[in-house]
């Protein structure tokens, strides 16, 4: 029977796909983390910095947002060896995703920072806080909450965009699917299974982020509203 | 414009009022109107008749269905039961041409609802162009006349965002008037205005009344009601509690509840309404 045949096929390829899914999730979470590490300081440099540091932060954000992720990946993986920097495939993909995400995250955090009124900084400084203390204790906690919905979106984008790692043969979910297609040539079932696994991952991510948002909710700091909208 | 004799306090004036008005054509008739939102019954059976040239002001506490009643008359809100006739045509009838009948009523909203992407002139002209299919030039000419009528021809090319609240509401009145309505419905037209801007809108409304426009007004402006209304309708809890000419309603209402409400609101609005 065709139905049970399809099921049997999917059962056969599922373990392989799931191994790919693990790599997808690893790439996504590591990429998000690198993006956060790069994005937060960039946001503050753009919001409060001046001179060269601010200029560099702006250049980073604009250069990344103005070019495709695939090109960035190819520059890192195929281009940097020209300059003597060679990375394993997984590391190249991670760097590309993280550096790319950092530029977008910087914009979300900057949006959050700029949505906080100047009065907050003034009030903090009036209490005797230094600029850095004010940022750390007053601005950051609010900006973080304001940026959360956009950050949730970023997490979801990140999972989807990990699929570009396939282009440099990182064995993540899509790459495994592509391999399975070339072995069995049953693209319909394989691709639908791959798509279904992505949907499940995204569903879990959305759920997790909802938990995070609820955990950090403070009345009056409205992060129900999407900053991107 | 009152068609009544300005005879003061005489508790049973209803008879003579009826005779006076019987000759006039009925513009709006509402019968047995009911409307619920979920489990909340907002209108519990309303009967109301407005005759040509009459100015009827509906008063009552907030949330008693005054606005809903107004919106049921042009079917912006669909009633659950009852019938509404506008200028002889039943808008609630099956297969009624709602848009055509609706165009016979002009409505003015609390929040103005001017079309933000159009200049004052085009706000007034768009109904003429789209609904009445009047050619561009003619529509603009007539829109200009309506703007003159509300004293705003100088603001013809301003966008809503460039107008004050009072000016916006006057444009909204002109927009409704341009459609040549048989009756104007005013839904708290001054409630969203700063106090100093209320006067100019009320002036326009008084002028309309004096020109013989049939008007149905939901308002808390007791001064306006006293001065301009032919009849005051007091609504509470989804029902009409009492109606009558302003002098009777303000000085000698039949129902205790009417007296209490009109007295209170008169005091709040600084009027000297209670005898």
């Amino acid at each position, binding site marked *: 029977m065709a139905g049970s045949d399809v099921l049997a096929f999917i059962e056969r390829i599922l373990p392989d796909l799931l191994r790919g899914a693990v790599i997808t999730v690893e790439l996504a979470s590591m990429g998000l983390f690198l993006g956060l590490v790069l994005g937060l300081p960039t946001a503050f440099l753009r919001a409060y910095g001046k001179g060269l540091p601010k200029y560099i932060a702006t250049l980073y954000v604009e250069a990344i947002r103005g070019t495709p992720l*695939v090109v960035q990946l*190819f520059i890192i993986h195929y281009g940097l060896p020209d300059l003597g920097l060679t990375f394993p495939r997984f590391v190249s993909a991670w760097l590309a995703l993280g550096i790319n995400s950092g530029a977008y995250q910087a914009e979300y955090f900057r949006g959050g920072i700029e949505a906080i009124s100047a009065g907050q900084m003034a009030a903090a400084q009036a209490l005797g806080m230094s600029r850095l203390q004010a940022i750390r204790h007053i601005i950051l906690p609010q900006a973080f909450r304001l940026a959360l919905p956009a950050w949730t979106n970023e997490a979801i984008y990140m999972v989807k965009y990990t*699929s570009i790692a396939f282009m440099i043969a990182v064995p993540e979910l899509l790459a495994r699917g592509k391999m399975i297609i070339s072995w069995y040539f049953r693209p319909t079932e394989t691709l639908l299974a791959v*798509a279904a696994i992505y949907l499940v991952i995204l569903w879990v991510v959305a759920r997790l982020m909802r938990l995070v948002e609820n955990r950090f909710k403070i009345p009056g700091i409205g992060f129900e509203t999407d900053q991107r909208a | 414009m009152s068609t009544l004799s300005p005879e003061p306090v005489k508790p049973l004036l209803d008879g003579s009022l009826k005779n006076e008005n019987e000759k006039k054509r009925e513009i709006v008739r509402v019968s047995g109107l009911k409307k619920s939102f979920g489990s909340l019954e907002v209108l519990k059976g309303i009967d109301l008749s407005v005759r040509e040239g009459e100015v009827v002001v509906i008063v009552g506490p907030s949330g008693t269905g005054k606005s809903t009643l107004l919106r049921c008359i042009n079917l912006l809100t669909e009633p659950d039961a009852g019938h509404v006739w506008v200028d002889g045509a039943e808008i609630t009838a099956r297969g009624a041409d709602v848009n055509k009948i*609706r165009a016979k009523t002009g409505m003015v909203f609390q*929040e103005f609802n001017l079309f933000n992407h159009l200049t004052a002139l085009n706000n007034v002209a768009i109904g003429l162009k789209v609904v009445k299919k009047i050619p561009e030039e003619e529509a603009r000419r007539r829109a200009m006349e309506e703007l003159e009528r509300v004293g705003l021809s100088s603001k013809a090319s301003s966008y809503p965002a460039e107008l004050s609240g009072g000016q916006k509401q006057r444009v*909204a009145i002109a927009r409704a008037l341009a459609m040549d309505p048989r009756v104007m419905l005013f839904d708290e037209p001054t409630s969203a205005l700063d106090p100093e801007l209320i006067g100019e809108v009320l002036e326009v409304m008084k002028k309309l009344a004096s020109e013989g426009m049939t008007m149905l007004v939901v308002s808390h402006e007791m001064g306006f009601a006293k001065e301009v209304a032919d009849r005051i309708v007091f609504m509470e809890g989804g029902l009409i509690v009492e109606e009558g000419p302003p002098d009777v309603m303000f000085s000698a209402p039949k129902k205790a509840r009417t007296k209490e409400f009109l007295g209170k609101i008169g005091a709040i609005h600084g009027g000297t309404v209670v005898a």
Partner: protein
Amino acid sequence: MEKVALVMRELPFILGGVGTTVQLAVIALAMGFVIGLPLALMEVYGSRGVRWVVSTYGTLFRSVPLLVLIFIFYFIVAKVAELSNFSAAALAMGLRSAAYQSEIFRGAIQSVGTGQMTAARSLGMTRFQAIRHVVLPQALRLAIPGWGNEAAVVLKDTSFAYAIGVAELMRRAEYASARTYEPFAIFTGCAAVYFLMTFGLTRLLTRVESAYRVRT
């Protein structure tokens, strides 16, 4: 300097892909608009069933990664319908953009506010007339910034068509890099071309936006 000269020599070949890239982006965006706008209207004004269908479409096409969509259209749809690689990529990108554009337009329509619709209906306009003359002219203006974002995303994502061998900018850069053994110089040059395109596009849309701004 020698590398710059090299990129310069390869540039005409790489730029030969700009046409394909732009074509792909324009087709995807146009398709997204033609499908996305009605979807948005259906989601705002449609019955419950219609809204469910539209939102399921949206969720699916926004959730499945573009590369997976492109493969689905390349391996499955294109084989059945005998489409070229380019068409498969354009179809995948267009239907995906429709899902995103419908979100953008839905948000814009909803932020126009119900008062505008009510006022239009009170003048005797039909629902359709009110949408056509009052709601849409405002919603389309409000949607310009979001649409600009989407246009930039689509333009950049055309590079995904590389994966099924469409000879767009990225694919040509890869050929050039293989020919010259200078991937860093070539891909950086390619990045610069993309940057100029998105920069120009953003500039253009900012112009459009300020020309059509509705003051509220």
